[in-house]
């Protein structure tokens, strides 16, 4: 849990880019891909994103580790679209109420690719961005209120702590005779009790941390930033990528005649 929130020694090029620039790039790609459900734009975007992997210090194994729920969701979405969408074209597989046709397969594939193409930039952003740097950029450059941003950042550190605390409380309660054995109702009761114990500890820790922050002068109207968040030439490239990748995807789809705006709902 704790490792997941830091860069863990990642020194790739994109870790040096401004988090806000990366964030804008990700938003641009996501918006363009959310517009259509064709497979051409999705695969073009996906291909570009895969090329960015080494720049973000990401490997396939790491991608699976961090993004497997998203990847799984995309796969399930694609599969269910393939079997449930209205058939047109040649029927490839027919199993009673479920059938896969050329048309529905294409739609399902489009869904899968799109899911991946939308999920990957988020995973890319997370794996090459330190939460502290993101907070710096959000507060200093996006001008979000610093109380809110720094409060969230400090709370995130406690989340890792709470993961350890959960394990400890579970053991401490077993030592009192509260087992995770038994029927589902008993298990649910045990889990609820453990959650309550964790909640009590979380509230105590959070209020002590709040006192610590307040005692260090947190909460005043004006504050300085020891580390100035700045834009560099690298960020211009990041933004350019954020514009060119969706542009290429849309252009390719238009060229191939597969561009299919979701909102217009044409079949």
């Amino acid at each position, binding site marked *: 849990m704790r490792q997941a*929130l830091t860069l863990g020694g990642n020194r790739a090029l994109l870790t040096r880019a401004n988090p806000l620039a990366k964030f804008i790039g990700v938003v641009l790609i996501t918006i363009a891909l959310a517009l259509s459900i064709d497979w051409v734009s999705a695969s073009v975007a996906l291909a570009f994103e895969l090329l960015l992997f080494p720049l973000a210090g990401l490997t396939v194994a790491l991608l699976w580790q961090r993004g497997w729920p998203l990847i799984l969701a995309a796969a399930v979405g694609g599969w269910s679209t393939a079997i449930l969408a209205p058939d047109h074209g040649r029927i490839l597989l027919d199993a009673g109420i479920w059938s896969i046709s050329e048309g529905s397969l294409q739609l399902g594939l489009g869904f899968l690719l799109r899911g991946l193409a939308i999920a990957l930039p988020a995973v890319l952003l997370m794996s090459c961005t330190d939460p502290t740097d993101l907070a710096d950029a959000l507060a200093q450059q996006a001008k979000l209120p610093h109380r809110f941003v720094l409060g969230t950042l400090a709370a995130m550190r406690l989340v890792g*702590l709470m993961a350890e605390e959960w394990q400890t409380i579970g053991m*401490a309660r077993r030592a009192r*005779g509260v087992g995770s054995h038994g029927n589902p109702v008993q298990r649910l009761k045990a889990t609820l009790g453990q959650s309550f*114990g964790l909640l009590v500890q979380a509230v105590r820790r959070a209020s002590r*941390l709040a006192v610590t*922050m307040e*005692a*260090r002068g947190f909460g005043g109207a004006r504050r300085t930033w020891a*580390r100035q968040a700045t834009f560099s030439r690298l960020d211009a490239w990041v933004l350019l990528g954020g514009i060119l990748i969706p542009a290429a995807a849309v252009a390719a789809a238009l060229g191939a005649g597969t561009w299919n705006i979701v909102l217009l709902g044409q079949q």
Partner: protein
Amino acid sequence: MTTPEVRPAAISARGWGWRHAGRSRPAVSGLDLEISPGERVLLLGPSGAGKSTLLHALAGVLGDSGAPGAGDDADADETGALLIDGAAPRAQRGRAGLMQQDPETQVVLSRLGDDVAFGAENLAVAPAEIWRRVAEALDDVGLAGLPLEHPTSALSGGQKQRLALAGILAMRPGLLLLDEPTANLDPAGVLEVRDAVGRCLDKTGATLVVVEHRVAVWKDLVDRIVVLQPGSATESAVLLDGPPDRVLEQARDMLIAAGVWVPGHVPATRARAAGGADGQGAPGQGTGDTPADPAAGGLLLAAEKLSVSRERPRRAGLLKGFGRIPPAPVQAGITAQVRAGEALTVTGPNGSGKSTFALTLAGLLPPAAGTVSAATELSRGAGIDPYTWKAQQLIARIGTVFQEPEHQFVTGRVLDELMFGPRQLGRGEERVDELLERLRLRDLVDANPYTLSGGEKRRLSVATVLAAHPQVLVLDEPTFGQDANTWAELASFLSELLDAGTAVVSVTHDAEFSQVLGGRELRLGAPQPELPGRMAPGVAAP
């Protein structure tokens, strides 16, 4: 040498008092106290004398949620005046720096350098000046060897407290407020922090107010001791005030009675019937098969070539056939025996896996490698490996007392808490009465466990585990942060249990405590280095 930028603060309390919202009795009342710039004051007194309340008030954070005993302090009540340099503490952010007890909540940010800079940033210090102060403060507390990007989660307790001190120093406060800064630390950590505070005071000349039970740690560093007493309308809140030696001489008996750790005084404890505290009864070394204690009974529990870890085994990826990958152990090759009526003390440096070993021995963690096996006398048909026992089977055989009592509270009332184990087992409720008496909990039966004092919580947590009548008792740092009275009661009680045939395994840094219990010592070595490549490609994370 004095850094000219720090202006030592003067404190003045005149008839000051504070009542927390929703409380009928004030936490402090009628406090008259003058502290001159640069003075170093140790604040003593029984629990409930309002020491923490005073410190929070001086730090300007009183009335916030999280202050001791406070909910919403909108209708809290302040009387008299409490001033720093003639002005209210609240109006002077950064004039005083506060360090609290729990190291985890003294760290705000995840990188070393950022955390030190945090306070100075809040005071709107110019960035270049902040980095100058960060470097200097880290140097002053002895953390200059670490890079500024060092993750704060990787620091030890003592290092975290020193980091907190650096963060405070970077604000250039004229007043340092330390609220039991070393209560959660092992002996090495205590000295680390104490020495760092001493160095910084010598350098800056700042005023110090420290609250701490262990007088010996701070006695030579302070030049004045103030003893507070619980507030009342007629008496002064200050019971005694003067140079350390004089106050300790005058108030020795009173302080000892109040549970303060007075230098040169080891609280009287019950002696073991055999093999215990006979003057040179230090625990014997080694893990041989013969009992160190001739009175010890049969073998109950044995660890054989045991490796321990808190991490669960992982599953390898698809390419490796989803095989089981054991976690990297924090300690390996431990062999030990637990015998009826014998104490086993587990010692070793920080991070050597002492607690992890105890939890594994107690059937709460699975062994990473090797075995834990219960003798038939203990298992009574439940199987050899305690980890596979059901929770009800476990508590009647091995009882574990955790370092933090609150982790083990499962009800909202002291009596229910004690009855919980016997009710699970369907027997032994009559034993609760005896425990209530023996551990002085009778007056608290209707109280909420979370509202008890530290010592009361510790006594309750021991009583609740013993109510299930286990043959083996495992305790993780039972004496951490305890006052001298609780300490002596606990040690005496355990020595009685040992003589009655219970096996006691304790993880502790407290040499005096293990001397009272006698028995055998298991010393664990330095921690195993983290194995590189643990997150190897192809290993799926949970």
